[in-house]
C-alpha cells in the first residue's frame, strides 16, 4: 500500500505551543518523523533597544525576557552591570534578591506544573498551580506594586525595602504551601496515566544535552548535576543549605520527560528551603548602593550568568565608557532548550511530542527576545 507523509503546521496558534512557537511537522499517521521549530514571531529587538538606552533604563525590558520569572531576569542583568562597574551591593539587598528570585522560581515552576497537566489532558492542576502562584504574586505586589513585570531590582540593589509584615506573610505562605506540594504529587506526578504518558519519552542523553547547551532543570533531568547557584555561587547563595535535585530515573530512564518534570517539582521544595533560611538570616541595613543617575561604567566587557527557572540566563555587556552599553547580548536558556527539541521528538507520536515540548518548559519571548 502506498502511503504518504503529511506536512502539518503546529502553531503559531495552537493550544500547546506556549505562545507563538510554530512547529513544522512531518508526520506518518500519528508518528512525527521530523519536527522543525520555526521561531521569531515574538521578536522585539530587545538587544538593539539595549544599545539605545542607558543602563538604568534597560531594567524594565529585562522583565520581558522571561515574563514568568521577571525577578530572576532583573537580578541577572543587575549582577552583570554591577560586575562591569564593580559596584558593591548591600547585603540586605542581596538577601531580598534571593528571596524574590526563589519565590519567582516557585511561581514559574507552578505554571509549569499546571501546563504539564494541561498537555496531558488534566485540567485541574493548572488551577491548583495558579491558586498558590496567586499568593506569591500578592507578595510581589506588596513589595513592588506589580504582579508580572516587576522592574523591582536596581543596579546596586533593589528599588525599595521589604514592606512591613512581608516576612510574616511569606512565612505563613510557606507553611501553607509546603504540604500542597504533596497534594500536587498525588494528583499528577504519581498518577498512573500521567506516568504512562511521561515516562521514557523524549529521552535526552547527558551528552546530547551538553552538546546543545541545554541548561537548568532540563540538563539536571538528564542527570547532570550543574546548578550555578552551587557550582558558581553568586549573590548570597553560598550561605544557604540546599540540594540540587537531578533526574535519577526513579521511574523510566534518566533524561526523559518525567524526570525533567520531577526535577522541577523537587526544585520547588528546595526553593522553599532557601527562602526559609533567607527570611531567618536577613540582616538589617541599606537596600541600595549609591549609583548615580548618570551612570557610566568603565570601558570593558563582562559576561554574567544566573540560574533562572529555565536555565542559565547570561548577559554579555560591552561598555565603551558611555552611558549606554556598546553591545548588550542576552543568552536565553529557552533558545538552547528548544533547539534540542527536534532531536528528541523524532519518531515519537504527536501526543508525546506535545508533552516533550511541554517538559522542556520554553518561554517564547525569551527565545525571540
Amino acid at each position, binding site marked *: 500500500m502506498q502511503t504518504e507523509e503529511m506536512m502539518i503546521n503546529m502553531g503559531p496558534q495552537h493550544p500547546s505551543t506556549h505562545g507563538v512557537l510554530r512547529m513544522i511537522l512531518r508526520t506518518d499517521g500519528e508518528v512525527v518523523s521530523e519536527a522543525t521549530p520555526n521561531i521569531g514571531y515574538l521578536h522585539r529587538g530587545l538587544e538593539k533597544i539595549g544599545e539605545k538606552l542607558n543602563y538604568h533604563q534597560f531594567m524594565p525590558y529585562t522583565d520581558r525576557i522571561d515574563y514568568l520569572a521577571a525577578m530572576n531576569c532583573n537580578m541577572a542583568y543587575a549582577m552583570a552591570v554591577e560586575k562591569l562597574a564593580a559596584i558593591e551591593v548591600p547585603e540586605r539587598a542581596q538577601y531580598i534578591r534571593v528571596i524574590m528570585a526563589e519565590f519567582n522560581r516557585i511561581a514559574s515552576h507552578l505554571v509549569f506544573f499546571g501546563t504539564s497537566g494541561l498537555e496531558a489532558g488534566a485540567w485541574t492542576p493548572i488551577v491548583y498551580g495558579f491558586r498558590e502562584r496567586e499568593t506569591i504574586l500578592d507578595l510581589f505586589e506588596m513589595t513592588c506594586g506589580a504582579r508580572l513585570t516587576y522592574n523591582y531590582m536596581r543596579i546596586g540593589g533593589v528599588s525599595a525595602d521589604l514592606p512591613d509584615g512581608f516576612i510574616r506573610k511569606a512565612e505563613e505562605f510557606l507553611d501553607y504551601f509546603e504540604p500542597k506540594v504533596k497534594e500536587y504529587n498525588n494528583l499528577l506526578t504519581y498518577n498512573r496515566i500521567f506516568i504512562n504518558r511521561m515516562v521514557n519519552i523524549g529521552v535526552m542523553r547527558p551528552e546530547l544535552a551538553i552538546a546543545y547547551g541545554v541548561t537548568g532543570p532540563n540538563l539536571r533531568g538528564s542527570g547532570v548535576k550543574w546548578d550555578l547557584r552551587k557550582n558558581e555561587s553568586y549573590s548570597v547563595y553560598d550561605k544557604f543549605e540546599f540540594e540540587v535535585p537531578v533526574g535519577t530515573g526513579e521511574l523510566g530512564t534518566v533524561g526523559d520527560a518525567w524526570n525533567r518534570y520531577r526535577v522541577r517539582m523537587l526544585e520547588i521544595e528546595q526553593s522553599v528551603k532557601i527562602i526559609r533560611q533567607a527570611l531567618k538570616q536577613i540582616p538589617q541595613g541599606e537596600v541600595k548602593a549609591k549609583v548615580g543617575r548618570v551612570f557610566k561604567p568603565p570601558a570593558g566587557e563582562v559576561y554574567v550568568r544566573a540560574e533562572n527557572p529555565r536555565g542559565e540566563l547570561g548577559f554579555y555587556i560591552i561598555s565603551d565608557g558611555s552611558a549606554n552599553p556598546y553591545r548588550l547580548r542576552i543568552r536565553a536558556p529557552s533558545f538552547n532548550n528548544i533547539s534540542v527539541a527536534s532531536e528528541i521528538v523524532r519518531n515519537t507520536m504527536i*501526543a508525546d511530542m506535545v508533552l516533550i515540548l511541554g517538559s522542556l518548559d520554553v518561554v517564547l519571548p525569551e527565545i525571540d527576545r
Partner: protein
Amino acid sequence: MLKEYIDAIKGFAERNLPVINVPVELWYIAWIFIFGGAILGGALLFAGLGAYVERRVAGFLQSRLGPNRVGPQGLLQFMADGIKLVLKEDLIPDAADKLLFRAAPYVLFIGTLGVFAALPFAQNIGITNINIGLLYIMAISSFVVIAIIMAGWASANKWSLYGGMRSAAQIISYEIPIGISFLLVIMITGTMNMHQIIEGQAGGLHRWFVFRYPPFTMIAFLVYYVAAMAEVNRTPFDIPEAESELVGGFHTEYSGMRFAMFYMAEYANMFAVSAIGTILFLGGWQSPLPFNILVPLGTDFISSNQFFIQMLIWLEGFGWFLSKVLWLVFLMMWLRWTLPRYRVDQLMAVCWKVLLPVAFFNMLAVGLWLLL
C-alpha cells in the same frame, strides 16, 4: 408501547369527540412528531443542564465557582450559551466538503437521539418497547462514529482529520467490550427487551445484575462503564478531541449552532450510556429496597386510589432511574476533572489487551455458572 398509547388516545378521542374521525395513519404520523419532539426536547434539556452541571462540578473540584450569574445559581447559563451560539456567524471553511460538513451534526443527532427512543424511563414510560431493544441501541449508536468521521473529513483540516481517524479507531474498538457486556446480560435474562431485563432485577439491591453473580457481573459493569466512557469521548479517553494535541479534534472548524450540536450530543450521549448501564446492571427503575415503599399507605387507600397510586409508582420508578443515571454521569465528570488523558496507542492497548480479555473471561465464567 407506542401502539398502546395511540390506541388509548384514539379511543379516548373517538369516545369524547365523536365528530372527529381521523384515519389511523394520521394519528401515527402525528405521534411520531410528538414523540420526536419529546425526545429532542428532553435530551437537549438534559444536555444543556448537563453542561451547566459539569461546569459547576468542575468549579467545585477546582476550587472556583463556575457559572453563577445567569438565573438562580447560574441555572440558565445554558440558555445564554445557546442563544449566543445561535446568533454566531455560521462559518464553513472554503475547502470544506459543504454537504458532508452540514450533514455531520444531523447524523450525529440521529445516533444520539435514536438511543433515547428505546430507553425505559419508568414502568410503562418510554417511547417504544421493542423486543430487540438492546440490539437496536447497539446499532443506532453507531451513527455517532460515522458522523464524527464525516465531520473530521469534511472540515478539510488536518487536525480534524486526525480527530476523525482517532475516533473511528477508538469507538469501533470499544464497541466490542460493550457488546460483550451486553451479551452477558442477554445470557442471564434470555431477552433483549429492556423492560424484561429490568423486570428480571426486581426485588432489591441484591437482585441487580451488578451484584448477582459476584464478582463477574461487577467486573462486566466496570468493563461496560470504562468502555462507555471511551464511546462518548470523555477523559481519560478524549483523544478524538484532545485539545492540547489536536486543537479541537473533529470539531475544530465548527462554530455557532453546529458546534453547539456536537457539544449537546456529547452530554446527551453521556446520559444515554449511563442510562443503558443503569438498565442493564443497576436495575433500571427498580428500587434498591427489598420492600415496596407504598405499603405504609394501606391497602384500602391503594385500592381506592388506583390512578393516583399508578402515578406515584411511575414517579418513584422515574426517581430511582434518574438518580442512578445522574450518579453515573457525575462519576464521569468527576473522572474528567481529575485524570490526564491516555495516548492513542495506550488507549488501544487498554481496549484490546485489558478490557476485551476480561470481558471474554467474564462471559465464559457467567456461562459456566448458569450451566451448573
